[in-house]
C-alpha cells in the first residue's frame, strides 16, 4: 500500500534529481488532488444531506412547511420506539433481510454449481440466467404485480390449476402472502447476481484437488466442505454483506408492489421512512426512522469487518 514513497523517489535520484524530483509538498498533495473532485461530490450530495437529516431527526418538521422546524430533542425517537407498529417494522425488516441473504445466496450457489459443469450451451445458459438481474426494478415490480393480479394473473391461474390457489387470489392484498410474494420477487432478481459471482469464485477451485478428494473416497458433501467451500467462503461472506446492505435499502420493488401494506405486513424501515415523510408528511420522525436504519447498517458493516478479521486470524473457521 505504501509503495509510492518508498520506491518512487530513490529510483529517480541520480540523473535529474533537481529537475524531476517531486517537491515534498507535491508528493504529499498528489493523492488529495486525485480524490478531491470525487470527495467534493460525495461531500455535497451525501455528507451534507446526511447531516441535515440528522438535524431533522431532532425536530418536528412538516413536509408542507419544511423551512419551519421546531427542535423537539429526542421526542421523535421516543415516539417511534414506543410504537408497536415500529417494532413490527423492525421485525419485518429483519425477516426480509435474512430471507434475502440466505435464499439468494443459497439459490445462487445451487445455480452456480449447476452451471459450473461443462455442457453444451453453457455459455447461453450462463447469459440467460443473468436476465433478472439486468431487468430494471420498476419493470420487475410492474410485471410481478400483473402476474400476481388476483383475477387475471398467471400465478393465480397456475396455483388454481394445481390446487394451491389462495382464496380470492389476492396474494398482494393478503397480510399473510404479501411478504412471501415480495420476497420471491426480490430473490428472483437477486439470485443471478449471487450465482454469477459464486460461479467466478468457483473458477479458482482447483480441479485436481477436487478429484483427489473424490479418489480418496470422500463423499460429495465432504468434498464440497473440504475443498469448494473453503475457496468460496470469502466470496459468500462478501455476498452476505452486500445482500444485507442492499436489502436494507431496497425501496422501489416493495413500494411499487405493496407500498408496505396490507396492514403493514411488508413495511420495512425504508418504506416506513418514506411513507412517514411523504404520506404522513412528518419529516422529523421520518428522519428518526432513517437514523435507526443508518445505525443498523453501521452495526452490520462493523460487525462484518470484525468477523472478517477473526476469520483471517483463524479464530473462526
Amino acid at each position: 500500500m505504501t509503495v509510492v514513497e518508498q520506491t518512487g523517489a530513490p529510483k529517480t535520484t541520480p540523473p535529474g534529481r533537481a529537475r524531476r524530483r517531486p517537491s515534498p509538498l507535491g508528493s504529499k498533495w498528489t493523492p488529495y488532488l486525485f480524490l478531491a473532485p470525487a470527495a467534493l461530490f460525495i461531500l455535497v450530495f451525501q455528507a451534507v444531506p446526511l447531516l441535515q437529516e440528522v438535524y431533522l431527526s431532532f425536530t418536528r418538521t412538516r413536509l408542507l412547511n419544511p423551512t419551519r422546524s421546531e427542535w423537539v430533542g429526542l421526542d421523535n425517537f421516543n415516539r417511534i420506539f414506543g410504537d408497536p407498529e415500529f417494532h413490527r417494522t423492525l421485525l419485518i425488516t429483519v425477516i426480509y433481510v435474512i430471507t434475502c441473504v440466505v435464499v439468494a445466496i443459497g439459490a445462487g450457489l445451487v445455480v452456480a454449481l449447476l452451471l459450473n459443469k461443462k455442457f453444451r450451451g453453457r455459455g447461453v445458459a450462463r447469459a440467460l440466467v443473468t436476465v433478472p438481474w439486468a431487468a430494471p426494478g420498476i419493470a420487475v415490480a410492474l410485471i410481478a404485480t400483473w402476474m400476481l393480479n388476483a383475477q387475471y394473473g398467471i400465478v393465480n391461474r397456475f396455483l388454481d390449476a394445481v390446487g394451491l390457489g389462495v382464496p380470492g387470489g389476492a396474494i398482494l392484498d393478503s397480510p399473510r402472502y404479501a411478504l412471501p410474494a415480495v420476497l420471491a420477487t426480490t430473490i428472483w432478481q437477486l439470485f443471478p447476481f449471487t450465482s454469477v459471482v459464486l460461479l467466478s469464485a468457483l473458477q479458482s477451485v482447483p480441479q485436481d484437488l477436487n478429484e483427489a478428494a473424490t479418489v480418496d473416497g470422500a463423499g460429495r458433501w465432504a468434498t464440497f466442505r473440504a475443498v469448494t467451500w473453503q475457496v468460496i467462503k470469502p466470496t459468500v461472506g462478501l455476498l452476505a454483506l452486500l445482500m444485507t446492505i442492499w436489502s436494507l435499502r431496497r425501496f422501489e420493488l416493495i413500494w411499487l408492489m405493496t407500498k408496505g401494506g396490507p396492514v403493514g405486513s411488508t413495511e420495512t424501515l425504508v418504506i416506513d421512512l418514506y411513507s412517514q415523510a411523504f404520506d404522513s408528511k412528518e419529516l422529523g420522525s421520518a428522519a428518526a426512522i432513517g437514523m435507526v436504519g443508518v445505525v443498523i447498517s453501521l452495526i452490520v458493516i462493523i460487525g462484518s469487518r470484525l468477523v472478517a478479521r477473526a476469520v483471517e486470524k483463524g479464530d473462526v473457521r
Partner: protein
Amino acid sequence: MRRFRFGVTARIIAVLVVLGVAVFPLYWMFVTALSSNSDLFADQPRLTPDLGQFGVFVDALAEGKAAGWLLNSLIIAVGTMVVSVGLGIPLGYALSRFSFWGKAVVTVVLLFTQMLPEALMVVPLFALFRRFELLDSLTGLVLVNSAFVLPIVALILKGAIDGIPKELEEAARADGARPFTTLTRINVPLIAPSIAATAVIAFFHAWNEYVFAVTFIFNPDLQPASVGIANFIGELGTPIQTVMAVAFLFTLPAVAFYLLVQKYVVSGMTAGAVKG
C-alpha cells in the same frame, strides 16, 4: 454408467427449470403486450404472443410519451456513466496507489455511503436542489445519481488497479512520467474491462433510478421512463398491453447491453467487490 446418464438428464432438467424461472417474467411481459383484450380477460390465458398485435409497440412509441421518456432515461444514464467513471478512476487510483492521511476515513466513508438509502436522502437533497436550481433538470439527476454510484465505481476500480503490478508504473515513473500520465497511459488501458464494468453499473443505476426522479422532476417532458412506467401502476385505464409494451422496451436495452458486456461486468464486479 447408468447413474451418470441419469445425472446428466437431471442436470439438464434442472438447468432448464432455472432458465425458465429466470426468463419467464420477461417472456410474460412480452406475451401480455401482444395479447388482445379478449385474450387477457379470458378464462384461459393465451400462453404465446399474438404477433398480429405487434402494432402495440409501434403505437406505444408513436402515440404516448414513451419515446421521450426513454430518451430522458438515456441522457441521465449516459451522463451518470461519464461523471461517475470520470471521478471514480482518479479516486480509485488514489486509494490503490497512495498512502495518505485520511485514507482509512475515505474508505470507510465510501463503504458507509453505499448503505444510505435513497429514500433517506431525498428530503435534504430536495432542499439542496432547490437552492441550486437543480429541480426539474436532468443535470440534477445526473449529479445525484453519480454521487450514489460513485462509491461502488471507485471501489471496483481500486480493486482493479490493485491487481496491476506496480513495476509497470515504476518503470514509467522512472522515465519521468507523472502520476496523472501514469494513470491515463498505463493503468487505464489495463483496467479497461473493469472500467467497462463500472460504466455499465453506473448506466444501469441511473437507468433504473426512481425515487429521485419521481421527486425532483415535475415537468412531464423531462420524466425518465422509470417514473413514466411506475405511473402506469394505478393510473386509470391505460391498456395493460401498452403498459407492458413500454416496460418491455424499457427492459430490453438494459438486458441487451448487459448481456453484451457481462463478461467484464462480472469480472470487474467480483474483482472490485472481493477486494473492496
